[in-house]
């Protein structure tokens, strides 16, 4: 079931000047949402933001009835979202998309790789995996130490490995160069981040014969599978990322890996 609702901004945090964490709540319990699903937010008062903006479900705090959105400010729409204040309303169409295909089995070793703001959906996913007895490990990449987000929260759910491009934290380089990939083996991998990073991880997974899921960020208009703007080429032809994704098994995609 999808909902169109005005949620209330309960808290706004600025972990870094380029990011905002919105904690939203409602007067009734928030609907069911699965990790990897996303919301389409309506941005009010930004002249150049006409369409809704797709944002991943970062975390659902059931105890406090909160839905968290972790947003990187890249343009007018996201910058406007960063100016929201406690008590403001935000109109959401949600939850959308398929989410990660497998929410975890007892003892399973799952590697979650995130780059930049692509770490957002992995927090909720890590929580689900841990709750189901699986063992999530996080490999998070960022440009530099200051761009690493929610580290303490990730550590609640599993071990965290880090790479930064400038070497200011963890290993220097890109996630695919991290030693954990050669030292340890995992039952499967899920990855969300910039496309070149996801392609590199997909290549690694293919070479090592590990199941790998990626979460895509194609440009969207409706978010409902109606406009056919967000398509990705797959073995089944063009499919809508907003409806049949955003999470795909890399083997279904027509990527050159």
């Amino acid at each position, binding site marked *: 079931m999808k909902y169109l609702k005005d949620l209330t901004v309960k808290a706004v945090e600025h972990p870094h000047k380029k990011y905002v964490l919105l904690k939203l709540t409602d007067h009734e319990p928030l609907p069911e949402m699965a990790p990897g699903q996303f919301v389409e937010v309506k941005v009010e008062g930004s002249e150049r933001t*006409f369409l809704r903006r797709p944002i991943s479900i970062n975390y659902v705090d059931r105890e406090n009835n909160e839905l968290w959105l972790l947003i990187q400010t890249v343009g007018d729409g996201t910058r406007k979202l960063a100016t929201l204040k406690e008590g403001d309303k935000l109109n959401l169409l949600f939850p959308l998309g398929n989410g990660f295909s497998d929410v975890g089995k007892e003892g399973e070793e799952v590697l979650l790789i995130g780059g930049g703001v692509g770490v957002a959906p992995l927090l909720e996913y890590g929580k689900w995996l841990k709750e189901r007895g699986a063992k999530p490990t996080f490999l998070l990449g960022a440009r530099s130490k200051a761009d690493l987000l929610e580290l303490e929260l990730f550590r609640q759910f599993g071990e965290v490995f880090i790479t930064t491009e400038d070497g200011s934290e963890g290993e220097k380089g890109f996630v695919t160069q991290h030693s954990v990939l050669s030292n340890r083996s995992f039952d499967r991998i899920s990855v969300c981040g910039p496309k070149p990073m996801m392609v590199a991880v997909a290549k690694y997974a293919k070479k090592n014969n590990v199941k790998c899921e990626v979460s895509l960020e194609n440009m969207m208009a409706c978010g*409902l*599978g109606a*406009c*056919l703007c*967000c398509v990705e*080429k797959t073995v089944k032809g063009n499919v809508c990322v907003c*409806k049949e994704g955003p999470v795909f098994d890399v083997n279904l995609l027509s990527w050159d890996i």
Partner: protein
Amino acid sequence: MADIRTNIAGLAMKNPVMTASGTFGYGMEFADVVNLEEIGGIIVKGTTLHPREGNDYPRMAETASGMLNCVGLQNKGVDYFCQNIYPEIKDLKTNVIVNVSGSSPEDYAECARRIDELENILAIELNISCPNVKQGGMAFGVTCEGARTVVEAVRKAYHKTLIVKLSPNVTSIADIAKAVEDAGADAVSLINTLMGMAIDIERRRPKLSISTGGLSGPAVKPVAVRCVWQVAKAVKIPVVGLGGIMNAEDAIEFLMAGASAIEIGTANFIDPSVSEKVAQGVNDWLDKHGCKSVKEIIGVI
């Protein structure tokens, strides 16, 4: 409570609000957030005789108060529609209208003939105005001769209400409308998207995969209102108006310009429940202005 029923060449509608092709899927996609039966009609995605993959990604670019798209009529073909989609939507208590496209008059006619056989589909909207396909599409809609040829072919194959959707990318839309009326159309709908283009200056390349696309949304509304007004003056058949409608006031503008019904497209992306709200809003506006029926305002300009 004003009487907001309307009709398009005999096709009865509970209210003048329909959803535009390509922006509302097959209706089901929106069922969680809008009451489909409160909408006057649902015009489903462009359907062709054979399946089409559409154009490559990227297919969309946001613009000032609007968007460009070059989806290119991706659909699974008319047989898939008849077998798999029609059964899901045929019992909806609203008008389900199929938008038909093709690359030759024969294709259009055959596609229309197959839809003619579907009992609960009482009308088609013939798309001779899609700017995003190489063959057919808008090519037929930009000359009187091309438009007449396709409409004549389809008229022979299709026996229910035939609405023909016109392109604004022409010198005189009223002339095309008259040609289509002569060829046997029961009604016209307008406008389809305006051909446009946007460039990513950092990458020095067009934002859309096929360079150009169709502009829609509030940015096109004044052009659309002008087209509806000119066409309504030129033909005797009913006119369905669309292009940039976001709310009930916009809808009333089109009705006053001469539209017997309206369609809502891009606005569904911003508020997926907008169609239901516009239907209610038209009613409220009429009540507030002491009009007993929507017919009192249609074509008053």
